[in-house]
């Protein structure tokens, strides 16, 4: 009963390096999301997807890219890491839109530090 699984849990990157945050869900949800949470702040939407092959920008997409080749997986790519990308990243999924379908299931988060 895994739900939403994110890897890695922690990562330290040097400025200019790149990395991919992995996210997979086993609930057959169509909707998947990437959020970042800065200290003392709420969750800001980076990118989201409403199904395989479809992605769209959220509130704070700059510096990130995503892909959605399968229903299960939604990786987040950082191409040129910057200190401003130091944050905790959460992947989430939901069954759809409207009413209870909106309820999102979250992974445990990836704590990323860029030095």
């Amino acid at each position: 009963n895994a739900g939403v699984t994110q890897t890695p849990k922690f990562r330290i990157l040097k400025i200019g390096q790149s990395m991919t945050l992995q996210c997979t869900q086993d609930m057959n949800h169509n909707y998947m999301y990437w959020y970042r949470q800065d200290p003392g702040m709420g969750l800001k939407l980076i990118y989201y997807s409403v199904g395989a092959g479809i992605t769209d920008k959220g509130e704070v997409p700059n510096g990130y890219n995503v892909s959605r080749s399968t229903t299960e997986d939604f990786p987040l790519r950082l191409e040129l890491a910057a200190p401003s990308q130091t944050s905790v990243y959460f992947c989430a999924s939901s069954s759809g839109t409207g009413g209870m379908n909106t309820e999102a299931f979250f992974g445990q988060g990836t704590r990323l530090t860029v030095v």
Partner: protein
Amino acid sequence: DQQVKQNSPSLSVQEGRISILNCDYTNSMFDYFLWYKKYPAEGPTFLISISSIKDKNEDGRFTVFLNKSAKHLSLHIVPSQPGDSAVYFCAASNNAGKSTFGDGTTLTVKP
């Protein structure tokens, strides 16, 4: 412009008493509202929700109230327990399936 606001960053209550967490929103297109609970080093977990066609939803010790005219919702926890100590996020969504989150309120329940 922040569309969902939780104006109290923190709240401290005594065990057994009522906890009231507040949330205000500005976008009248929001039609579904959710509360999530987050413990340190974990992802948020869904707690309770309410549709815009209702003004109250209850689940055990948790009740959410919605005042559409004031664009205000609140979460009541009665009685509060030490295990309720966590960060509570209010979220609002429209039919596009995306939720907008507030900045959270840290609740501390003292034994």
